[in-house]
């Protein structure tokens, strides 16, 4: 049994009195201790997928398919079970720690609230443990920081507090939604190092959502590329740069300016990123794809296995990336 199993997950949202599908048939598995990076541009559905795993889909939406955690279906959990699931088995880190932490309560209260009210820990136990995890995430003088208000801490420090709050109850799965996007690059580097190290030492699994391919590749075992609410490619992270097969994955890698040399022009992808709402007969990326042919515009490509990758592209096995 996998830790997380997602089968034909779909999400329909209410948009101006009509229901529209934004996530289309997303399926993947995550084993215990493994990490998957979900990457894509805005509208790809990467965050919605992540939130659905925590049972946090938007209120006006309908989840289809099956999302299960350790064999138990998330959508079948009742209120109480869902609370327990979120407070002890999965942990979430968001992009903006400042909006996820109540600004008028002290850091210590924020850290211990969950375990005291939901898991019935004693206050002194919770405090001892809180000091322990703050030390573990590299915050010096933890006793003093427990009494600080969130506004007294920098963004990087606050994200560490966020991470620490998730370590209190030994979750099996860490859901990280762009956890370092709002941080400076040097802070990003140290926060990622922390997440990576804690994850490995505790054997936690992780789903890491990011727009940054390079960052996801550095901390994940597998990369799942999403476009317009569909999976377009799923492959081992080490294969991304050299062996990715989907034109979109390649185009994303190519579009970023390089740090090690200067090119005259960037290989921009024409057009706008599509969202899952945009309906086409064929491949949603076809309109922006340099390799699109008639079949791409008339038939939706399904994921198929080519060597170590799962690719949803009609032409994945024809394109020779070493030449083009």
């Amino acid at each position, binding site marked *: 049994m996998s830790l997380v199993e997602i089968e034909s997950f779909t999400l329909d949202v209410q*948009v101006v009195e009509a229901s529209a599908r*934004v996530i289309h048939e997303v399926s993947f598995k995550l084993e215990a201790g493994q990490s998957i990076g979900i990457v894509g541009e*805005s*509208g790809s*559905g990467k965050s919605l997928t992540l939130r659905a795993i925590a049972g946090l889909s938007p209120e006006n939406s309908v989840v289809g398919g099956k999302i299960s955690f350790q064999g138990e279906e998330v959508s079948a959990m009742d209120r109480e079970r869902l609370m327990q699931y979120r407070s002890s088995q999965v942990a979430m880190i968001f992009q903006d720690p400042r909006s996820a932490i109540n600004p008028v309560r002290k850091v210590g209260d924020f850290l211990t609230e969950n375990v005291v009210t939901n898991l019935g820990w004693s206050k002194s136990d919770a405090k001892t443990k809180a000091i322990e995890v703050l030390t573990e995430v590299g915050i010096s003088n933890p006793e003093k920081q427990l009494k600080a208000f969130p506004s007294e801490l920098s963004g990087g420090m606050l994200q560490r507090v966020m991470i620490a709050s998730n370590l209190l109850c030994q979750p099996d799965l860490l859901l990280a939604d762009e956890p370092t996007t709002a941080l400076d690059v040097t802070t990003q580097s140290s926060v990622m190092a922390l997440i990576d190290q804690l994850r490995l030492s505790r054997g936690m699994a992780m789903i890491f959502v990011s727009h940054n391919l390079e960052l996801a590749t550095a901390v994940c075992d597998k990369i799942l590329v999403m476009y317009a609410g569909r999976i377009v490619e799923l492959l081992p992270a080490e294969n991304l740069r050299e062996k990715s097969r989907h034109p979109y994955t390649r185009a994303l890698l190519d579009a970023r300016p390089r740090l090690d040399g200067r090119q005259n022009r960037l290989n921009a992808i024409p057009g706008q990123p599509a*969202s899952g*709402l945009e309906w086409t007969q064929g491949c949603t990326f076809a309109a922006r794809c340099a390799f699109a042919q008639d079949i791409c515009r008339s038939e939706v490509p399904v994921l198929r296995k080519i060597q170590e990758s799962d690719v949803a592209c009609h032409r994945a096995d024809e394109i020779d990336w070493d030449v083009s």
Partner: protein
Amino acid sequence: MSIGQIAIGRNRGYRKRLSKLGLLGWLAVFVLFIFGVIAIFGSALAPHDPNKIDLAYSYVGPIPGHPLGFDELGRDLFSRLLVGARTSLIGPIVLVISTTLIGTSIAILAAWRRGWTDAGLSAGVDIAVAFPGLLLAILLSTVFGASLWVAIAALTLAYTPSLARLLRSSALRETGMDYVKALKVLGFSDSQIIFKHLLPNLAPFIIAQAIIMFGYATLDLGGLSFLGIGVQPPTADWGTMVAAGASGLLQGYPTQTLAAGSCLVLTALSFAVIGDRLARIWGVE
């Protein structure tokens, strides 16, 4: 995140959404429309002379041709109600306009200049908010004598600080937008940016606030008239009518107080409902 971006769009088709006023909203519009017509044509519509005293009819109840009966001086109540609409509505209109003009100016000046100007104005506003409006009205009326205009001036002074404070925070948010900075760099003068961009963008908020204020203004001016500080007799006015009816109330003749009072409350309520609905439609709090 894509869903958020689709749904969020400021001012997106808000004219279309005006239809979402709801039944209660439209009812309020209807009530105000009727009162507006009465305010304009009241003296023409009145079946009798509102100031004609006939003590023989003092506190006489409804009789044919006099649907509401008579007041303590034997004046036709229905006619007084119709004619009184104008004074009762003009007072709040002047009050709301003066408060909105002054309050908006203070808010924009504070938000635009920031720094010391903002600190000074905000401190002044904080002090003024603490000062009770009624006390101010009584004070002014002892100095300048009681009249509608003194009541309006007093309430303007009482209302302005809280409005200025409310508007300042939205003005601050708006002046912090990058487009305002870009327009400065493009070479536009402060007044061009304020009048062509800032004010139109704040307008929905200002209008919603003004309409809500209208309700309070109707009640408060009525209240001041009731205390004898506002409109002076024998001018027909709903506030003074409530006051004049008070003695009758004790003697078992509640018609005057009830009729004039309901008109006041109905007006205030209608404005409050419309202001609230508009605020929701325009997406401002």
